[in-house]
């Protein structure tokens, strides 16, 4: 063969062979190691507030999590607000966006309350609630389990007598943050560690201070924030006169709130899943009943047409005789 021809054909063939070989291998591996669910969706779902309100345009939080995982914008969740957007941006390594106001605005947490004197017991709000937080039966008064209500306001619209109010929850009552610390009243922490031997519960007060000051609650929790008994000995030892305990108190409140919110979100998620199971079961049962009834009607029709035929024949027979 012509040597210049082989100089062209050889590399072409070998590259082609390599490409085909690697492609086949990749295809094989893709089939062998196929994975159904995307773990990213679960992680996104954990960050969403689980109100199941549908303001993002998807039916619930998990569908929105799936949409985000496949590239939707992260700023469509008004109940989560800026905190959720920041967490999502952190997880997905994208830029923090402002909330898209066209999906709703950030409002304080609300719960639904039924004005019970006006409720007519129509039971229309009960199937509307995504977390089954409304109790009641037809022709009986309904009420909302306020600790389970996510404030999605999906029950307001179906109510024919408009007896459901969205009431703001007064969260500041139980956990009051104090006035912000005056930054000019003390000097910077120089990590002198004079506070460390003072602490009766063996916390490293200066480490905890930096975590609280930066608003890093996770790190503060790891630095045993909750073990602090607020005795104030570190305050007295500090040569920069930093009011350490004030910082710890604020961080404790923020941490408690965050934990409470997380627990509430987890509960709502669980209730939403159970709600979904229940709705599916009821639908299936209704479908079965409908089919049975249709069959019954068909049989009855057949029976009735047969009996009419029989009667006509009897009449005919009588006429002939």
């Amino acid at each position, binding site marked *: 063969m012509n040597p210049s021809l082989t100089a062209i054909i*050889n*590399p072409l063939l*070998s*590259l082609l062979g*390599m*490409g085909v070989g*690697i492609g086949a*291998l*990749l295809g094989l*591996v*893709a089939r062998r*190691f*196929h*994975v159904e669910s995307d*773990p990213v969706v679960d*992680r996104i779902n954990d960050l969403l507030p689980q109100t199941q309100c549908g303001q993002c345009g998807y039916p619930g939080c998990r569908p929105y999590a799936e949409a985000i995982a496949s590239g939707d914008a992260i700023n469509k969740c008004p109940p989560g607000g800026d905190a959720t957007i920041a967490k999502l941006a952190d997880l997905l*390594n994208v830029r923090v966006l402002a909330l898209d106001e066209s999906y709703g605005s950030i409002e304080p947490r609300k719960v639904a309350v039924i004005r019970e004197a006006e409720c007519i017991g129509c039971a229309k709000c009960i199937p509307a609630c995504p977390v089954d937080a409304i109790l009641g039966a037809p022709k009986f008064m309904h009420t909302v389990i306020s600790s389970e209500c996510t404030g999605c306001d999906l029950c307001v619209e179906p109510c024919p007598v408009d007896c459901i109010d969205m009431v703001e929850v007064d969260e500041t009552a139980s956990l009051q943050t104090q006035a912000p610390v005056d930054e000019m009243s003390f000097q910077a922490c120089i990590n002198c560690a004079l506070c460390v031997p003072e602490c009766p519960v063996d916390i490293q007060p200066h480490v905890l201070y930096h975590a609280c000051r*930066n608003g890093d609650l996770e790190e503060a929790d790891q630095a045993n924030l909750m073990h602090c008994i607020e005795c104030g000995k570190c305050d007295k030892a500090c040569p920069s006169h930093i009011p350490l305990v004030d910082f710890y108190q604020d961080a404790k409140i923020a941490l408690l709130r965050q934990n409470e919110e997380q627990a509430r979100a987890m509960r709502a998620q669980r209730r939403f899943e159970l709600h979904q199971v229940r709705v599916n079961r009821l639908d299936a049962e209704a479908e079965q009943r409908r089919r049975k009834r249709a069959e019954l009607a068909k049989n009855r029709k057949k029976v009735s047409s047969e009996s009419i035929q029989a009667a006509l024949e009897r009449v005919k027979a009588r006429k002939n005789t």
Partner: protein
Amino acid sequence: MADILLILVGAVLVNNFVLTQFLGLCPFMGVSGKVETAIGMSAATLFVLTLASACSYLVFHYLLMPLGLEYLRTIAFIVVIAAVVSMTEMIMHRTSPLLYRILGIFLPLITSNCAVLGVALLNINQSHNFAESVFYGFGAAAGFSLVLILFAAMREKMAGCDIPEPFQGPAIAMITAGLMSLAFMGFSGMV
């Protein structure tokens, strides 16, 4: 043994890929914002670089050399590296979801990390044998990880600093990287 130790030390400190050879600079600047992500990136790079240098050695010596196609090595290596990375990702996704979660999006990013291709090509240039190639890849990745994590830690510290406005963000990061590079120059002549 001494040979391999020499290669390792040389790749990690003396001829550090990022700071003296200026390879793999985009992940060095891109994912050094947080120590946590830097560790993820380092682990992924360590894994892929070692594997890729072994694979590219095999491809060069058992496929390209016998056919006299050495001039095709760049394109062949790119294909091999991309295949290794995506295969690793798929297998890891199934067999070890935990590791997959840690490495996360960093695995596919490595495909375009020029340090990986650089190691494969340098292995050929310096005519390393198989074991040397693997250890050179490992050393390069270890050096990359070391520098990346150090840099990320510094950037985390700097986030709380009072930096003059014109120097904020990438500007001060570049200056820091330059100072680190100067420091690493001190290792030259050690091997």
